[in-house]
């Protein structure tokens, strides 16, 4: 039974059959061709049997294994490796269909390999999940055929495996390394000149154009005969809360990933950096009510707690209620903190409704309102309109984009810091803002 189940035929089989039919039809008119066709038919039959024997001679001639991490990082390319090893005595061709998790909706993935006798080969590919959660890999289907290529034998190899897709820890590590090695400039992070000051002395260093000349250490400059400057330490142990709006407006996807998941990824990155800088990181999520509050802390466990917390976030995308958020923050976050609020506003009027609560939060804390540029609208603005209706559509798109600027201005008018960012650059822009605010000593 297994033999029948694993027995498949190639296109070549059907091509040969078709050719034979054609030859016999020609043979109807030219009897000599019919005789040749008959010979070819028996030859084909012999080859078919031979090919089957070659493929089915051994019991387990092919093994495959899928190697990948236990956890996948959301929104990033995660690499997967399949190792194939065979014991056929001749060169074989293998088509591999890996059973991917249903979330990817990929139906046409196929790898074609040629293996010489005793050769081991790897297949490397990567997947970009856009939703957190459990992803179920199935088995590996491999179809083997020989040079004759008439019969294919199917092998069902490997084991099914479930991987969890977590908020982007890959990005987290990337920015962590950059922050430690002070290389944030590389990925478009601009160096912020220290404007603010702090009384905690750290070191004396060379003066660089742009430094505050009031802090020049004249004595040290005299000793070294070049300009030296006092550098002061950053304030430590400040609280940084990532507040994530899980409401209706955060469902919108860009490049397949919802704004919510962009926000979650950025929260993880910023929490990690805050912890590395000696600050305390915390987490608040809300929609129609506040769902979870993870108090800010700088314990060793904190980053892991935040990661697990973010992984578990579920939402019904309800209308977010900022009054609930305000009440909750007022009650549970008593120390002045940096509040990074990830949300999305589309129009000034929708902002007006929430502005009161935002101002209230800003009185007690340092509030940074983070919302998103609509890159699809931007794309529309940057294309030529070819009809009057196109001009109208473009005008509306421009109005929407302009509205976002107005929202930003409205918030700034009330002393609330804002970040208006394309979803892709969210993490970078948030880190920049954090570093800027910290160096200005605003918290």
């Amino acid at each position, binding site marked *: 039974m297994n033999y029948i189940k694993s027995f498949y035929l190639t296109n070549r089989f059907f091509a040969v*059959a078709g050719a034979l039919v054609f030859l016999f039809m020609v043979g109807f008119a030219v009897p000599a061709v019919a005789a040749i066709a008959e010979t070819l038919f028996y030859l084909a039959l012999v080859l078919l049997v031979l090919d089957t024997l070659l493929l089915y001679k051994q019991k387990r001639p092919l093994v495959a294994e899928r190697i990948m991490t236990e956890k996948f990082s959301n929104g990033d390319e995660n690499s997967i490796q399949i190792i194939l090893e065979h014991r056929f005595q001749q060169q074989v061709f293998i088509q591999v269909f890996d059973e991917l998790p249903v979330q990817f909706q990929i139906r046409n993935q196929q790898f074609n390999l040629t293996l010489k006798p005793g050769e081991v080969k790897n297949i490397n590919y990567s997947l970009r999940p856009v939703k957190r959660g459990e992803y179920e890999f199935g088995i590996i289907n491999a179809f083997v055929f020989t040079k004759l290529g008439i019969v294919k034998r199917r092998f069902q190899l490997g084991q099914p495996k479930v991987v969890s897709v977590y908020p982007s820890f890959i990005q987290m590590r990337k920015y962590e390394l950059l922050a430690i090695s002070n290389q944030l400039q590389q990925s478009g992070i601009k160096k912020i000149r220290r404007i603010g000051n702090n009384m905690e002395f750290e070191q004396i260093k060379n003066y660089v154009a742009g430094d505050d000349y009031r802090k020049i250490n004249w004595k040290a400059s005299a000793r070294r005969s070049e300009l030296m400057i006092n550098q002061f330490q950053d304030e430590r142990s400040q609280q940084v809360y990532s507040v994530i709006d899980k409401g209706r407006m955060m469902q919108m996807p860009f490049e397949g990933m919802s704004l919510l998941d962009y926000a979650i990824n950025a929260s993880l990155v910023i929490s990690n950096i805050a912890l590395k800088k000696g600050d305390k990181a915390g987490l608040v999520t809300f929609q129609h009510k506040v769902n979870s509050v993870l108090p800010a802390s700088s314990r060793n466990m904190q980053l892991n707690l935040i990661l697990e917390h973010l992984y578990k976030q579920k939402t019904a995308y309800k209308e977010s209620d900022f009054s609930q958020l305000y009440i909750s923050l007022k009650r549970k976050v008593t120390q002045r903190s940096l509040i990074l609020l990830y949300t999305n506003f589309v129009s000034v009027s929708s902002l007006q409704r929430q502005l009161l609560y935002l101002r209230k939060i800003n009185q007690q804390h340092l509030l940074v309102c983070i919302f998103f540029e609509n890159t699809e609208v931007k794309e529309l603005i940057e294309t030529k309109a070819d009809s009057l209706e196109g001009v109208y559509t473009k005008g509306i798109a421009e109005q929407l984009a302009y509205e976002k600027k107005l929202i930003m201005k409205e918030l700034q008018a009330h002393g609330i810091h804002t970040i208006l960012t394309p979803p892709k650059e969210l993490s970078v822009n948030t880190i920049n803002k954090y570093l800027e605010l910290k160096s200005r000593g605003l918290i």
Partner: protein
Amino acid sequence: MKDKKYLIFFIAIITIYVVYEMQKPKPEDWTVTYHYRDRIPFGTFATHDLLKDLFEQGDVPSSFKTIYELVEQEEVDDNFLAIAGNFIFDDNDFNSLLKHVEKGHTVFLAAQDFSTRFEDSLRFEAYLEQRLNPSDFTQIANELAEETKTRVRFALPNGNEETFVFPTLTTAAYFSKVESDSITEMAWREDGKPVLLKYNGGQGNLYLSTMPLAFTNYFVLHEETSAFASSMLSLLPEDEPLMHIEYYQMGKLESRSEIRALLSYPALKWAIFILLATVFIFILFESKRRQRIIAVIPPVKNATLEFVNTLGQLYHQQKNHKNLAQKRILFWKDYVRSHYTLRTDKLDEAFKLELTRKSGVEKAKVFALVELVERIEANDMIEEGELLMMEKLMNEFYGIV
């Protein structure tokens, strides 16, 4: 599990339906076929069976060929029996038949109608009073049930006479004219019309009957009438081989299907068999799954563009060009302010020059755009052309290709 439940339910329903269909009393099939395999009332299964007992050879072979083919091509040496609704003979058939009879064979033909060629040559005429409507089964059943019967007088070769009673339906045809000297009448209806003729040609005999229905199952199995069929059949010599010719009511069996013609050529036979086998194998093997089923999850859609398009269409229907132009100017001014840090409250000569210098766009184009903006802001109404012109100038200003 759920699927299985449905399957069981489905199978149960089908079973009930099949049982119901089998239980239902079948309406009697009154089709007149004269076929030796048909057990319906007007088939000739019983007659064929009867032949076995009447003739020494036992099983009487059936042939689906014409008399011409049998006599001229296969040179068959048997006596012939043919029962049909009507005989359609061509010249070849007719000549072969006469030749066969002259050679000393006996041929028995039963039909309600004979072809004119036949009738003219032997100089007789058959007349059919009432034709059966083959599709009207109720009419046939009614006629058979009716009391109106006809007596048929049969002069046996041994000199005796016997009388049989038949429903009128059976004796609807009779020989209306018999002019030949070599024909003798052998059986008559009660009104004296002959229904069985004997033609003496050469050394053999040809019997013609207008009562083919007498040979059907219904009458052969009926006690009152069965003797008539066997009496007529006994006219054929029992010690000579007999052949039942079915061609005249059935046609040539093998000639019916066109594929059979193709199959008679070996090359085409190969082609067809390989083709059919391949199609079968294709369906069997290509329908097998290559990997597990991937359920469809509709992707979450970003509806912004749809929203923008819909709004655009709505505004377009209103055709308030000025309103739209103002929206676009707001966006443009914001662009100028944020990119070139220029004040946009006064669009004077200095502004234009500064903008030209800062943006790096050709002077003429910047001037044209700013002047158009000024003109639009000054007017209450603007033209469609101006809106399109603004689009063109703005694209140049923003550097949109």
